[in-house]
């Protein structure tokens, strides 16, 4: 790899072989506007917004995909470039709906920002939007093809990051449309509901299925008793959607905001994350001792669950039978808590704040009603909670810190790390070590399973027992691990899989934008939150001890099985066709 310099806007810039012009410029702090480019994806050169003038080149070139050469002379904002760029964006705007003020992505839209940045004050060519139908059939994702600018980020995400290939580009030229195979409505098509496409959509072309109206009505209904739970990864990202930099821990403010919104009880999904460690840990011990199916695969991530159901149904026996922490919470809120608090579960509305769009689907799964009611009624993404906080006029930055309510609010550092890839594994190992060896684990930071590499393997000595573990995040990484398991290779005991890159902190319901750098900052906040917790082992959570004493009995008890464990549904990869209604 040779290093050399190129000249960008008269400034000498370091570059090396294999870099693109955009990368060299960015590294030197020179801004080039982009649109279809995304730091998580390979360059596509589809939108032509990052065009630059390169001396000796006949025409303007897309900097996102044009390789650097020694001595190259580049202009990023010459009159020719600015004019071309404006024309490109004007043409994108020519048939784009102009109802920005009522769009979900108003003031968080890359096309809007770009129009402002490039000084576009008129759109010389204006035609009607294509009038394509909005697809709101999915429980998680709403697709508005008129707002789609065909940048292809979503389908690259679906293809390369998630290996699902549900979203496709169909047709050609002006008739191109991004959609599902054979125009299958998204709710019936091959989709794992992860929402990673939403996180990378520059416009309002893909947004979450909103639960905001339902939650407002529940909060405003005096006959309803509203309980809320907050997932680990929401507390380190909510601030971003309310004007704070990435990596702020806002747990206490978030609790205050939820009370200000009017929730009757503010609880923590972290409590049921600790409970998951107990149930899943004992399930693993049971499998190892009884010669059960190994490796055991984690089951917290509903996008991942749907993926294995579609793509590797033969491996469903490997999947832990534990419900996700959200659903464990849902089942306990309307049973254990309702009993304790003397609230009729029929008038209880259970809301969860999640970094995730697949949780909306999970909450609606037909089997998720072990409390006798739908266990979780509404799921708000981190983004949706931020919208409600704004709408209620809450000054988030100035809110005081407050504590979660009892008895479903107490948690440990082992629970908060569920929000980062490797966290469930680390939390499980902390408990497994101490339960199996009956001795204290000296160093609680099991760094071997941390980090952002797609697949990580580690062998951790639990007493004399070498526990072989693997961790994967992002479904294309998961697929590598699953292929090995399916082929009878990979002698792991326990495998953690998270659907989204970085784990839940990079979830499809998290604030937009996302990037490797933002995910690193969120991960640092997660591990900081862990270090700051007074208790860092799930089995030491006094509320966990209490719930087993008072209600559940012991891990894997009959009651646990009924409320906290579930079954899965093998599915095909075929685009499911629904009959046309007469």
């Amino acid at each position: 790899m040779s290093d050399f310099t190129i000249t960008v806007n008269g400034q000498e810039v370091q570059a090396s072989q294999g870099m693109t012009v955009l990368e060299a410029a960015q590294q030197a702090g020179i801004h080039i506007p982009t649109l279809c480019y995304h730091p998580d994806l390979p360059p596509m050169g589809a939108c032509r917004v990052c065009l630059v003038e390169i001396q000796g080149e006949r025409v303007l070139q897309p900097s996102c995909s044009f390789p650097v050469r020694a001595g190259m002379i580049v202009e990023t904002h010459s009159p020719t470039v600015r004019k071309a760029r404006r024309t490109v964006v004007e043409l994108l705007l020519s048939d784009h709906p102009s109802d920005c003020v009522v769009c979900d992505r108003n003031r968080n839209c890359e096309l809007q920002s770009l129009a402002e940045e490039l000084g576009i004050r008129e759109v010389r060519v204006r035609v009607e939007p294509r009038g394509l139908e909005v697809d709101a059939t999915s429980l998680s994702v709403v697709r508005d093809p008129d707002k789609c600018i065909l940048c292809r980020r979503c389908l690259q995400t679906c293809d390369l990051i998630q290996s699902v290939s549900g979203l496709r580009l169909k047709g050609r030229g002006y008739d191109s449309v991004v959609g599902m195979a054979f125009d299958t409505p998204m709710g019936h098509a091959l989709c794992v509901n992860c929402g990673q496409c939403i996180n990378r959509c520059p416009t309002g072309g893909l947004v979450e299925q909103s639960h905001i109206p339902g939650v407002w009505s529940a909060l405003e209904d005096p006959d309803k008793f509203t309980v809320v739970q907050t997932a680990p990864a929401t507390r380190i990202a909510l601030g971003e959607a309310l004007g704070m930099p990435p990596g702020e821990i806002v747990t206490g403010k978030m609790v205050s905001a939820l009370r200000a919104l009017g929730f009757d009880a503010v609880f923590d999904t972290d409590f049921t994350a600790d409970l998951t460690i107990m149930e899943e840990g004992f399930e693993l011990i049971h499998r190892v001792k009884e010669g059960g199916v190994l490796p055991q695969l984690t089951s917290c991530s509903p996008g991942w669950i749907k993926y294995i159901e579609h793509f590797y149904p033969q491996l469903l026996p490997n999947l832990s039978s534990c419900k996700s922490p959200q659903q464990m919470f849902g089942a306990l809120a309307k049973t254990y808590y309702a009993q304790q608090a003397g609230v009729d579960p029929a008038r209880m509305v259970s809301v969860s704040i999640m970094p995730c769009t697949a949780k909306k689907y999970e909450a609606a799964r037909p089997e998720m009603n072990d409390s006798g009611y739908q266990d979780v009624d509404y799921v708000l993404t981190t983004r949706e909670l931020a919208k409600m906080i704004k709408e209620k006029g809450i000054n988030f930055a100035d809110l005081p810190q407050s504590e979660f309510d009892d008895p479903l609010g107490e948690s440990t550092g082992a629970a908060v790390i569920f929000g980062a890839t490797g966290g469930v594994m680390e939390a499980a190992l902390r408990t497994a070590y101490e339960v199996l060896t009956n001795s204290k684990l000296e160093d609680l930071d099991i760094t071997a399973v941390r980090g952002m590499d797609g697949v990580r393997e580690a062998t951790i000595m639990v007493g004399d027992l070498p526990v072989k573990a693997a961790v994967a995040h992002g479904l294309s990484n998961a697929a590598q691990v699953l292929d090995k398991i399916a082929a009878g290779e990979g002698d792991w005991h326990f495998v953690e899989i998270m659907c989204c890159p970085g784990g839940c902190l990079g979830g499809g319901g998290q604030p937009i934008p996302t990037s490797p750098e933002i995910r690193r900052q969120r991960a640092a906040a997660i591990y900081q939150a862990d270090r700051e917790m007074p208790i860092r082992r799930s089995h030491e959570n006094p509320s966990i001890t209490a719930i087993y004493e008072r209600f559940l009995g012991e891990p894997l008890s009959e009651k646990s099985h009924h409320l906290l464990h579930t079954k899965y549904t093998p599915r095909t990869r075929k685009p499911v066709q629904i009959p046309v209604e007469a």
Partner: protein
Amino acid sequence: MAVQTECICADVYPRIDAIIERKGAQTDSLIEILHAIQQEVGYLPQPVQEYVAEKLDVPAGVVESVVTFYTFFTTVPRGRHLVKVCQGTACYVRGGKRVLETVEKHCGCGVGETSEDRRYSVDIVRCLGACGLAPVLTVGDDIYERMKTTKVADVLGKYE
């Protein structure tokens, strides 16, 4: 070239299997496979695309993107005779548009469609490289030069 137009019956699948075996069951061969199947079956309806996807172990949408991108591929049965009217610049300025309208009226179907009796399919082509003979129309492998709207019925009438 005789275009087959029979329905998708169970017996096409062994023929598709043979094609996939010949070309290799990998996505790199997808276009060639689809091309050969269209030659054999006449068109690429959804069940065929899904079948190919399953054989190649890719989601069906991957096959559909390719089929819908290339105008050569068709998802509906083609007529016995494929009529293509050139709409390249030279043909267009010399009345290609009017020729196309007349062809559509004569066949009773629009561009990309097939007449009800499966006699004709109508399509356009952007340039045939025969601009000196503009406007040009082709039926199957036959080329008709300097077309006029008044000649359309005679030309098409020759093809049963």
